[in-house]
């Protein structure tokens, strides 16, 4: 089926084309855009595994009671599963204590954790653009935003075939779900088709252009606003085509194993990372959302479990696999994710940009789509964050635990995303729904987390 592929290509181009802006990823005034990468996982992320093992007795006691902490990570040891990020410790933040009870929680959350509202499988439940799309609007690019996914095969959240294009976790706006690429091969084909050497792809592009030109002519005298929109998409096509020389060097050169229809989850993740990096470095997009796994995904290729098919739902219910306990499987999954984050950060640190590297202008977020555990309640949404030096948040190199749910100073996902948006130029007063349950504590839920705004 080509529907969503074409949608992704045309919609992404069109969305950017329709907005009154011309500046893409390449800086025009010497100031590069910020990039944002959201990697989210299913099955929850235990707050307990986020804690550096080297806390002092006092701090450990505070941690146990979920009291506020703000510690220099440079003076602490990272949790074992996070060790792949050791080289990035100065850029690393472990953020704990955010709640998200205004989200749909439990097994599945759809757009909730990125949108801070109760989402479900109905499109009508999407209240507004998710935070990644809000950030994408502030740092425009030809594709505006791309989404990659290791889709679940059964039940729940965003789902499609492993290799298809289907509804993702992000939302472009109210009642507008985004679509995500399920396989690195499809993603690479669609994102980089303007420089494709494949004859059939070229023919499709030619037909698409002719159809739009025809439609534009037909509507010119009937509905000018519609004709203008068609022309805007055509103009964007022309500009992307004109970028071909800039894009061509970054076309991902994927190993054969990433292009296969059958591949392990781990290879799928790595392939997606290649596409993600290529899209960012070529300037096609500044924002990527990546579903690294989901509850309904059957995990394959995990280190130590290479021959096993891991059912994450069973793991969520405490079922181990072979000699490994459920917690040990969870460890392996998280550690695999950290290798991906490390790969992204390391590559971006090698890409020069102005006086530094692309990583200087990048934030990477790793978090659970559904909160603190398998059957989550949303009382905690732990985050691992990597920030370049130009990110405008005062959080780098820290272990931060915010005050517990209901305590003075407690913060929500809405506060966190408001902080991100405010820091990068969106003055929104508050992003996301309030948590009615917090009202009983008489706390002000609105606004940014002031201490993060350096």
């Amino acid at each position, binding site marked *: 089926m080509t529907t969503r592929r074409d949608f992704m290509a045309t919609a992404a181009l069109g969305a950017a084309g329709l907005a009154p802006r011309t500046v893409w990823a390449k800086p025009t005034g010497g100031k590069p855009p910020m990039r944002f990468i959201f990697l989210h996982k299913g099955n929850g992320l235990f707050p307990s595994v986020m804690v550096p093992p080297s806390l002092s007795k006092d701090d450990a006691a505070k941690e146990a009671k979920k009291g506020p902490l703000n510690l220099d990570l440079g003076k602490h040891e990272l949790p074992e599963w996070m060790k792949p990020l050791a080289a990035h410790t100065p850029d690393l933040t472990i953020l704990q204590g955010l709640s998200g009870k205004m989200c749909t929680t439990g097994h599945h959350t759809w757009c909730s954790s990125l949108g801070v509202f109760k989402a479900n499988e109905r499109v009508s439940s999407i209240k507004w653009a998710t935070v990644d799309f809000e950030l994408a609007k502030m740092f425009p690019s030809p594709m505006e935003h791309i989404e990659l996914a290791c889709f679940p095969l059964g039940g729940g959240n965003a789902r499609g*075939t492993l290799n298809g294009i289907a509804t993702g976790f992000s939302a472009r706006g109210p009642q507008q779900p985004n679509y995500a690429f399920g396989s690195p091969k499809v993603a690479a084909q669609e994102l980089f088709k303007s420089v494709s050497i494949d004859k059939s792809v070229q023919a499709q592009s030619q037909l698409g252009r002719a159809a739009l030109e025809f439609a534009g002519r037909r509507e010119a005298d009937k509905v000018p606003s519609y004709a203008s929109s068609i022309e805007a998409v055509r103009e964007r096509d022309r500009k992307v085509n004109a970028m071909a020389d800039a894009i061509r060097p970054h076309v991902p050169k994927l190993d054969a194993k990433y292009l296969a229809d059958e591949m392990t989850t781990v290879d799928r993740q790595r392939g997606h990372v290649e596409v993600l990096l290529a899209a960012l470095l070529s300037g096609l997009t500044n924002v990527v959302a990546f579903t690294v796994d989901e509850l309904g995904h059957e995990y394959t290729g995990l280190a130590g479990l290479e021959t096993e098919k891991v059912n994450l739902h069973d793991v969520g219910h405490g079922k181990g696999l072979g000699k490994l306990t459920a917690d040990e499987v969870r460890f392996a999954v998280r550690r695999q994710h950290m290798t991906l984050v490390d790969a992204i950060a390391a590559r971006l640190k090698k890409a020069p940009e102005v006086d530094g590297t692309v990583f200087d202008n990048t934030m990477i977020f790793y978090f659970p789509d559904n909160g603190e555990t398998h059957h989550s309640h949303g009382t905690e949404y732990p985050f691992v964050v990597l920030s370049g030096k130009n990110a405008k948040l005062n959080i780098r190199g820290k272990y931060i635990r915010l005050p517990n749910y209901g305590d003075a100073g407690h913060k929500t996902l809405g506060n966190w995303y408001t902080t991100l948006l405010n820091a990068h130029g969106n003055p929104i007063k508050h992003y996301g729904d309030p948590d009615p349950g917090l*009202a009983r504590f008489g706390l002000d839920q609105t606004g940014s987390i002031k201490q993060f705004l350096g």
Partner: protein
Amino acid sequence: MPMPFNSSFQRSLWVALVLATGTVPARADGPAAFAVPTEVRAVLDAHCADCHGEHGKGNVDVTALDKLKLGDRLETLNKIQDQLFYKMMPPPKSEQPGEKDARMLGEWVRTELRRHKASKLDDRLPYPDAGNYVDHAALFDGSNREKAYTLARRWLVSPQIFEERVLDVFQLVGRERDQLRRSGFYGVTNPFLLPDNAGVRYYDLTPLDGSHLLVMLNNAEWIASKQLQAARLKAGYPKAAPADPKDKWVPKTTPAAFEVVVTKKTAPTDDEIQTAVQTQFGLVLQRKATDAELRQYLALTRDAIQVAGNAEGLRQMLKAVLLESEFVYRLEFGAGKPDDYGRVPLAPREAAYALAYALGDRGPDATLLKAAESGKLNTKADCEREVLRLLADTAYFAAPVDKSLGFLQPTTAPHPRLIRFFREFFGYSTAFKIFKDTPRAGNVYTNADRGSTGTAGMLIDEADRLLTDILAADKAVFETMLTTDRYYVFHPLDNDKGKKLVDNWRAAYEVLRHTDWKKNPEAVAKEHDAVIRKYLDPKGLPGKHKVNHDNSVLRFMSYFEATFGRGFTPFTVLPWAHGNRFRHAEIYNLGAMPGHGGKYEPGQTFDYHPVQPFAVPDRKGILTHPAWLVAFSANTASDPIRRGKWIREKLLAGVVPDVPITVDAKVPDDPHKTLRERVGEVTRSAACVKCHSRMNDLGYPLEQFDDFGRFRKLEKLEHPDSLVSAGNGKSTFDVYKTKPIDARGVLSGTGDPKLDGPVTDALDLIDRLAKSDRVRQSIIRHAFRFFLGRNELPSDSQTLIDADRAYLKSGGSFKAVVVSLLTSDSFIYRKQQGNR
């Protein structure tokens, strides 16, 4: 032809505003140096300058208008215009200008703003929120003798019409059409969204733009592929099946004209291509292509076939037709020779579509199309005949009122669009978007979540059922909707089935209650097997259940003892049934559900009514229906301001100014005060009370109902300092100090001295509203907007008067209102832009 959207509409409404404000426009002068005319300055000095002189209140200085820069001056004039329009200045206790002076001042301000195209009020006029800006009395006093019309227009289809048009492309009928109407198409996204605020929302104002295009491109790809899928499979094309196995639906056939091209081994002839083009025009645009269109599409298809072959080339043509703007527009230009008033009637084909889309979401049925084609849809009498016929047809437009209501089997109505008017008018269908801290309601309320719209969805469906019944009866419709004390509360079985089931249960209980069922259920099950099979389960029952959700004699009898045994009627869905989410009887103050969690607590138990609707105490109509009360509440408290605003605007045709952007008022917390007391405090200041006096006193009586829709005499002071005891949120709940509810209010604005004045509580308020002519007329104004897709103009006066008369003459038939509106000049006649 570019459509006349806002500008011409604004000119029409300018006349309307004149009536509303009591001013008449002066001729706009040409560009000249600004000066305040002497007579205007005199009025400003006499009535405004005391407060709004140098450094005046609100940064408005009316004495220095001629010294301001243009931008500042226009901003000040807009402020003055708003104050005059909303009748908020001079303050009520100040000396008021005479009618002539007020008219002159308003006229001058408006002229100055329009000279610079800077009137913010004008910008708002076409939009739904400004529907009430036209003076109500002037619409119904009969003084306006203008001939009614609507401007010629392209009107974007509604979300529901769009869905039907896609179903038409595939020529789906019967069950398959019904199923796909409910499920939607896997690859089709509806490009049209309506805002979800209360009030009529589907207007002719939205242009087709880029956001629609993106979705239409995607839809066109999918639809065109599906149209050809059967033929491609037949022709043995590789990859004809969709890549996504979840995209399962395949049309059974491909239209013959397409199949010919797809299956042909050589290039198609011109005739074959033209036949295919005509076929696609018929399916998508429901008309024949013109000769010029045929030539254009022939060239496009030929070129595409040359590049990509027959099937793919044809698909490009199908896509191109699907991208025609006409696919998503309703065309209402009118045709024929203009009458003495410059109006032309809708062309018969346009009239057929206009009537069909007024009554439903589908295009015209065969009879209506035939009438249009055979010259039998040219007169008002023709239209009336067809409207009456379609209203009597309970099948053609029949569909669920709201297919999105989660796991429920949503209410189906013969004309769901008529229900939809009242849904939009009352605005209760947004209840599921309000999220609650559910322990505050003892966990009997469930938020919308995965696979369900939660308790709110059930409440909405219960309100839908109520309205469906009232519309079916079609007598005193408005009054009944406002005052009925009869409600639906859980009604999974129709009246006959529900009653029969309960009667059987009672018969079984009467026999088994005398047995030793508690101690020896197995023996009872054996001994009374015949009774059990006759009344409870034809397959028989075990004495004791083994697993969750199983039926057993013990379970049945425990349930019956807690219901029949206490003089109550059991609910027809068993408490242990899988997926039983019916817990919200307490929201209606009807007692707790017996058997939830296997518990049969003593105390008030829900006394179920298998025959519904039934009388529920302490409530009257939709304004006390929990769905409405939840929709007009905040997350953690009721909302007397929004409830009052709704009554002012929707029932009393009143106007409440927008909240000034400088206002960021919050209701203060106070552990010792009710919400009413706190709202009263924060809106007491002179700056606030001007607007809040139009809302608060109408909303306060509804404080008898909390934010879950529960009737109450005491308000819980939900503040940490008023906490008496904390619950665990699961089986025990927070207990707070309480204060008595003060439900007094004041009704104003009916124009009837017998009705206006203090009210004792919500039910008193509602009784009076239901007796008000203005309320009836206000509902008719909103119905006009719903069926015409625009705000009413003074020239629509006769249309509204006729609809009002039709309602009264028919004893309160809403169908009579619909017939009147759909045969009115406003509905039938069109004027071209500039021809007024």
